[in-house]
């Protein structure tokens, strides 16, 4: 009887130790998935995993934050780093940082699921963040970009934008098409890096010169800017495919005007001069007539309705 009682106490002690142990100690009893199998490798990820597994959470967090500053990380590496950072922050009791890390992870991988062996507190936080994202309570992306001024044609068009809070995995793109075409093409905005190699909030897209050739007549290009997440949901934009912005590419004559052949006849003998003078005279006359006969207007009918009541 006495021996049986001691055996029971021994089992109870083991059970209590097992439940109360830190995550690193509890591995033999409740094995976590092998971290190295869950994501891509990088020196920072490998080091952070080792620190995490040994319970050195502050060191792991520092390693991850430094690793996130490294240039040229792949999306997979970023996802793994944010996953580890969220877990580490939670063990350190820093829920805001854990939330921030998992928001970034979820915006990149909307279908990401935590391993079943994850701690209940982590699963609860993760579920709350998913709900927030579904109802779009996360911090919105802001895109600040100016419309493209009319370019001369035959040269690349460089567009610079400022994008704040760009979610991991989200892409900013410039969509464009020749007015009248059906489909849009697109070019990605690339993040600029400072002299120290660190990424900045400035982004740049380049419309190739062959997409805006110089032609005899001026023509219009329609375009819009869009930031979309990994699931192709629009997060921010300027213009859209139905209401694009427009720039006009100047005709060849305007570009060539300044570079006329010096060996040609004197300027006052050129027939184009007199064509131009005639055109100006006609235009001026037409303008005066238009001004005196009233401005041409288009009518804009507007129909207002109240939204139907929700059932």
């Amino acid at each position, binding site marked *: 009887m006495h021996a049986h009682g001691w055996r029971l106490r021994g089992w109870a002690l083991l059970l209590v130790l097992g439940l109360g142990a830190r995550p690193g100690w509890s591995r033999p009893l409740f094995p976590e998935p092998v971290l190295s199998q869950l994501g891509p490798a990088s020196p920072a990820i490998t080091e952070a995993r080792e620190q995490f597994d040994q319970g050195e959470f502050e060191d792991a967090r520092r390693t991850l934050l430094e690793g996130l500053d490294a240039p040229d990380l792949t999306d997979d590496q970023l996802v793994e780093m944010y996953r580890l950072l969220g877990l580490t922050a939670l063990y350190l009791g820093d829920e805001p940082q854990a939330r921030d890390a998992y928001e970034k992870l979820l915006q990149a991988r909307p279908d990401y699921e935590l391993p079943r062996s994850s701690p209940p507190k982590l699963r609860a936080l993760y579920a709350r963040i998913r709900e927030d994202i579904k109802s779009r309570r996360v911090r919105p992306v802001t895109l600040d970009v100016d419309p493209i001024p009319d370019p001369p044609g035959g040269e690349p068009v460089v567009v610079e934008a400022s994008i704040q809070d760009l979610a991991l995995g989200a892409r900013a793109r410039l969509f464009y098409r020749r007015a009248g075409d059906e489909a849009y093409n697109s070019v990605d905005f690339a993040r600029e890096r400072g002299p120290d190699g660190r990424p900045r909030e400035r982004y740049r897209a380049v419309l190739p010169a062959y997409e805006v050739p110089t032609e005899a007549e001026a023509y219009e290009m329609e375009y819009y800017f869009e930031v979309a997440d990994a699931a192709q949901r629009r997060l921010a934009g300027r213009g859209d495919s139905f209401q694009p912005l427009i720039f006009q590419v100047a005709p060849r004559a305007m570009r060539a005007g300044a570079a006329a052949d010096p060996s040609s006849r004197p300027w006052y003998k050129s027939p184009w001069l007199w064509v131009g003078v005639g055109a100006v005279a006609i235009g001026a006359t037409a303008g005066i007539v238009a001004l005196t006969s009233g401005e041409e207007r*288009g009518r804009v009918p507007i129909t207002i309705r*109240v939204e139907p009541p929700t059932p």
Partner: protein
Amino acid sequence: MSLRLLSPLLLLGLGACGPDAEPAGRFPLALTMERAVANDVQALQVAVVSRGSSRSCTEIQRTCLGTQVRRDDLVVLKDTQGREGRALRFPVDLATLQSGGSLELAVDVPVGRDYALVIEAITTGTPPGFLGSSCNYLREVNAGDNAPVIAAPLTLTGGDCNPSIAP
């Protein structure tokens, strides 16, 4: 006849070609108003801003248009009764709207490109109050037929601003 005499004549001849002047264009714009706005709205104020693509409609809809643009940025509009102004007000028949009917307005806009059309729901007390607005980019307004535009819904925003715009 010399070339320099022929050229202006040729241009004059060409200028006489082309279609006849078209009648004023129709520009259908359908707008849905949130029920919360319809409960309080007393008038709709319509304005058209030049250089539309350089404006942010999201920003414009946050508060009164008059506090965000200069008077010169607004084009002069006309209504079907011949009233002119940089912003035109149309009284709202609440009973018709709330019973599922629609309100038909029309404004004449100078033919041009790159506009933003803003419709503000307001109260007409003293001072007038701002309830919300719908801002829509208009690529161009032709005298002929224009492409239809789906207007942004007019939602209740509210704000401590006076929506009045000098004519």
